[in-house]
């Protein structure tokens, strides 16, 4: 078992076998080449993508299937091959961003793909799709303190 102190989870103990390697990192975080995928029962179905290179880096993600019932993309062979031999072996995650008004958006344009057996991951950009980088989830709420006047 290995250990890493993190701001979000305190001291994390983990099995090396559960480390997910991102050989190219992800855009803007190319040096973050190892992550853990963490689920906490109380916040399911959220999955936290916790960097093992920079412990302060942790993404909120959600399996695409929990948000979009018909997420229509076929991974290009160049994207799929390094991760899995079969699309059914891929976990597709969407990165979430919390906006200033407290609402969250999901990145449908650039999903994170992880091979369940290979434990390899990468973020792919669906260049030819009309999906949004900032697809809103739910309706933003403006609270009293946030209203402009």
């Amino acid at each position, binding site marked *: 078992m290995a250990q890493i102190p993190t701001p979000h989870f305190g001291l994390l103990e983990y099995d090396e076998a559960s480390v997910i390697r991102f050989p190219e990192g992800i*855009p803007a975080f190319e040096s973050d080449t190892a992550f853990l995928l963490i689920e906490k029962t109380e*916040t399911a*179905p959220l999955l936290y993508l916790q960097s093992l290179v920079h412990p302060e880096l942790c993404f909120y993600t959600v399996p695409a299937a929990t948000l979009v019932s018909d997420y229509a993309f076929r991974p290009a062979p160049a994207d799929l091959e390094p991760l899995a031999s079969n699309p059914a072996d891929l976990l597709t995650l969407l990165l*979430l*961003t919390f906006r200033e008004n*407290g609402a969250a958006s*999901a*990145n449908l344009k650039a999903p994170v793909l992880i091979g369940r057996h290979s434990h390899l991951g990468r973020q792919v*950009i669906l260049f030819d799709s009309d999906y949004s980088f900032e697809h809103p*989830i739910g309706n933003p709420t403006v609270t009293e303190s946030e209203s402009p006047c």
Partner: protein
Amino acid sequence: MLIIGRRVGETIHLGPDVEIHIMDLTPSRVKIGIVAPKQLPILRGEMIEAARQNKAASQAAATGDSVSRLLTQLRSHNSPALR
């Protein structure tokens, strides 16, 4: 921004080392050929946007409230916000 109109087969030169060739054109898509030194990065705009979006996601200052609200939306059967 300098805006130039080109037809298929025509070119634009950027300095001595970079050439833009208009290869093909359809109503929805232009195919562009680029001649440039190997060390010049050539990126689709979405790559820059992806980096920007990842940075925004990494800074997610999620409050307990916003996470609860999100979980409610995720767990509700009909995921109303995503069509």
